[in-house]
């Protein structure tokens, strides 16, 4: 049968009559968008009608719920470094985006969301599927704007892309009334935006602060680097590595920063925070100079603030001036994009090796291996642990896969133990802690990085929050490996109930459907295992399957994630058990 290749419309000449919807889609093409995640509905129908003609330029992925759509767009943005794009209709379509917007804002993920809105003359009349989307999304967007006139669309869209991707990235929402989508106007072309007078995406780099920072680093006996996602957002992985290798400083990461430096780099000393590694947490309170790069001192990282790194001089490199001094008082603020500031700093620092200091981290690591890691990764117990599943996965992927995690115990275990050779390989809901994130985000991550293996590691709780996105996998034919670590509990809450609520297990006992049957219903092959002897072979089967595959691993029910900095405690009070 002959298939007719559709030809995408070329960018029209000036003064061509276009509808608002057509102008919007031309804008997307100019901005280099290739994938849109969305769900149609009444108030966004004119845009979907126009999309019909753009099929070969703009691939549209029909999700099963708008929350799935926005998490997919987040996954896409995180794996590709590009702006994720979401379409949703008015009212419930738009309100279903809210969780994803909040997640993207706190994790600085660039998104452009387009929501349909009722006709302008119906605004405020409680029309069918009308919601105050601008009002609702204001606190969860970097910027939002309502368009009621088609002529505004090119300029507003250009602004939206500029705001979403520049500076500290974030989600942007444009709410377009149906009349503006339909309205024809004389198209004046599409010019990408690079300057908005009231918006300063990057603070001015101040040489004197860089000099002061270099002096502190050069004098330091026990310097310690903490890095976050900012290194990746600034595409500064090479600059970061160059800085580290010249200074010889040990470096630890927040979960959002995982992978910016390969796991096995000799100066990578591990993960920070509540379930981070032993050494990095303890040494935070022993270092003399703390160099924070593209991270924001989240409470899960700092523990009790008044006992956090009080002995240290703090150098904070961040693109967002509002982060400086927000949680931790800074001695030297290095405003700016670390892609620019790190090379300046590298020039001024002395070449050094902190062999003894680095060895101290390795001593702590040994203690942690003895107390926690060995038993977690190579358990002697009969039942399987989450850690050993991740360990075996590492062996098979060799650290080449993108690991997308949900939220909870499995997330902490996966982030702690996953081997990551490449940047943009750990995609997780860090700031907001959104259960249900992983499955849709993994779909998006695969679209953003089609040549890489994407493994979604999900708990039995989170899986059931967005399980409908199996339908998206089915229809799009995308290849996502789904690894469910099932402990038959809402494990992290159960752990807290065990430790801090006298084992009163209040509503954490969660049953699961037969995931293999569910997957089968969606045309996705699957398997469930509960014996260690099947683990490696089942993981191999999952990874080598030509398309998506669901593997459920039954793990021990009442395992706890350690080490742990209990809430309200200092990082140096980290517990190994």
């Amino acid at each position, binding site marked *: 049968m002959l298939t007719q290749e559709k030809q995408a419309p070329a960018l029209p000449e000036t003064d061509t009559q276009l509808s608002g919807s057509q102008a919007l889609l031309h804008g997307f093409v100019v901005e280099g968008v290739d994938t849109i995640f969305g769900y149609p509905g009444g108030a966004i129908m004119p845009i979907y009608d126009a999309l019909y003609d753009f099929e070969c330029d703009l691939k549209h992925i029909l999700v099963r719920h708008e929350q799935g759509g926005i998490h997919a767009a987040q996954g896409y943005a995180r794996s590709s470094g590009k702006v994720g794009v979401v379409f949703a209709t008015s009212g419930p379509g738009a309100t279903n985006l809210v969780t994803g917007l909040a997640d993207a804002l706190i994790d600085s993920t660039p998104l452009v969301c387009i929501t349909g809105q009722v006709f302008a003359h119906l605004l405020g009349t409680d029309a069918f599927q009308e919601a105050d989307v601008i*009002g609702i999304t204001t*606190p969860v967007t970097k910027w939002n704007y309502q368009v009621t006139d088609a002529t505004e669309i090119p300029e507003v869209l250009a602004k939206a892309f500029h*705001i979403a991707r520049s500076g500290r990235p974030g989600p942007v929402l444009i709410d377009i009334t149906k009349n503006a989508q339909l309205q024809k106007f004389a198209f004046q072309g599409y010019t990408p935006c690079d300057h908005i*007078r*009231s918006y300063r995406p990057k603070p001015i780099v101040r040489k004197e602060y860089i000099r002061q920072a270099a002096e502190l680093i050069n004098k330091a006996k026990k310097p310690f680097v903490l890095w976050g996602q900012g290194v990746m957002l600034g595409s500064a992985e090479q600059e970061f590595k160059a800085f580290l290798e010249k200074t010889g400083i040990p470096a630890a990461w927040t979960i959002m920063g995982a992978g910016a430096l390969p796991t096995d780099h000799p100066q990578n000393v591990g993960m920070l925070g509540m379930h981070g590694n032993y050494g990095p947490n303890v040494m935070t309170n022993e270092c003399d100079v703390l160099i924070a790069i593209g991270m924001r001192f989240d409470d899960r990282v700092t523990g009790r603030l008044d006992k956090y790194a009080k002995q240290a001089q*703090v150098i904070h490199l961040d693109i967002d*001036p509002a982060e400086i*001094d927000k949680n931790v008082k800074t*001695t030297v603020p290095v405003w700016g994009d670390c892609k620019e500031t790190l090379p300046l700093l590298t020039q001024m620092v002395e070449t050094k090796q902190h062999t003894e200091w680095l060895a101290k981290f390795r001593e702590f690591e040994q203690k942690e291996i003895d107390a926690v890691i060995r038993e977690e990764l190579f358990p002697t117990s009969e039942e399987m642990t989450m850690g050993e599943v991740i360990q075996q996965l590492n062996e098979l992927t060799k650290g080449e896969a993108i690991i997308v995690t949900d939220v909870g115990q499995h997330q902490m275990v996966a982030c702690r133990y996953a081997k990551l050779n490449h940047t943009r390989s750990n995609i997780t809901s860090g700031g907001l802690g959104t259960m249900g994130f992983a499955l849709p985000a993994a779909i998006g991550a695969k679209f953003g990085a089609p040549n890489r293996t994407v493994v979604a590691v999900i708990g039995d709780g989170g899986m059931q929050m967005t399980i409908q996105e199996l339908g998206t996998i089915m229809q799009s034919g995308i290849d996502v490996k789904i690894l469910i670590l099932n402990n038959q509990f809402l494990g992290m809450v159960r752990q807290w109930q065990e430790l801090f609520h006298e084992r009163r297990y209040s509503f954490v006992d969660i049953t699961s459907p037969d995931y293999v049957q569910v997957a089968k219903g969606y045309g996705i092959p699957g398997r469930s295992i509960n014996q260690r002897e099947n683990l490696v072979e089942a993981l191999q089967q999952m990874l080598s399957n030509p398309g998506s595959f669901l593997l459920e691993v039954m793990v021990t029910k009442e395992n706890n994630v350690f080490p742990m900095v209990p809430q309200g405690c200092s990082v140096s009070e980290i517990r190994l058990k």
Partner: protein
Amino acid sequence: MSEQAPIERQEYNITVYTENQIGLLNRIAMIFSRRKMNIESLNTSPSEIEGIHRFNIVIHETEEVVSKIARQIEKQVEVLKVYFNTNEDVIWQEMALYKVPTDIVAEKAKVERLLRENGARVVVIRKDYTVFETTGHREETDNLIKILQPFGLIEFVRSARIAIIKDSDGFNRKLREFERAEPGHDVVENEFLNSREKVFTM
């Protein structure tokens, strides 16, 4: 600005220069409400530059909190610049209107004298009521309430505070900086750095 951030809470006058954009008031107000902070007074008005709006916000907080809030406000896309100042650093005024029964004012010469002493001005006189206006600091407008209460004060209303920064040269020069793609250093202000180890002082 002092080197040591005072611990005490006091009134701060936050001046915000913004673009004229629907929804921006909401975005700014949410920065306070999210942190369960009360706005004591809020005024929006045009500024010395056409198309640029000026917010005057008064809050009762510590310098540290105010400085963080100022940065959060400045982070908003349509906000050009934020300043914060103590009452000593600004010239400020609030306006108040008082409605009093005309017969009492007419009968009692004492009332008229009190009004005059407090700088009140008659805005309108009707048969049944008279409206007075005063402009000044909070204590002054408050004081007149107390004075008029025994004489049958019918209605009282006070405006938001408006404040002019003593040290400011206005916003014209700064705006030209903003209009350039690469601004000079002087768009960064109000950044007081921690004095933890005295590496910097400002």
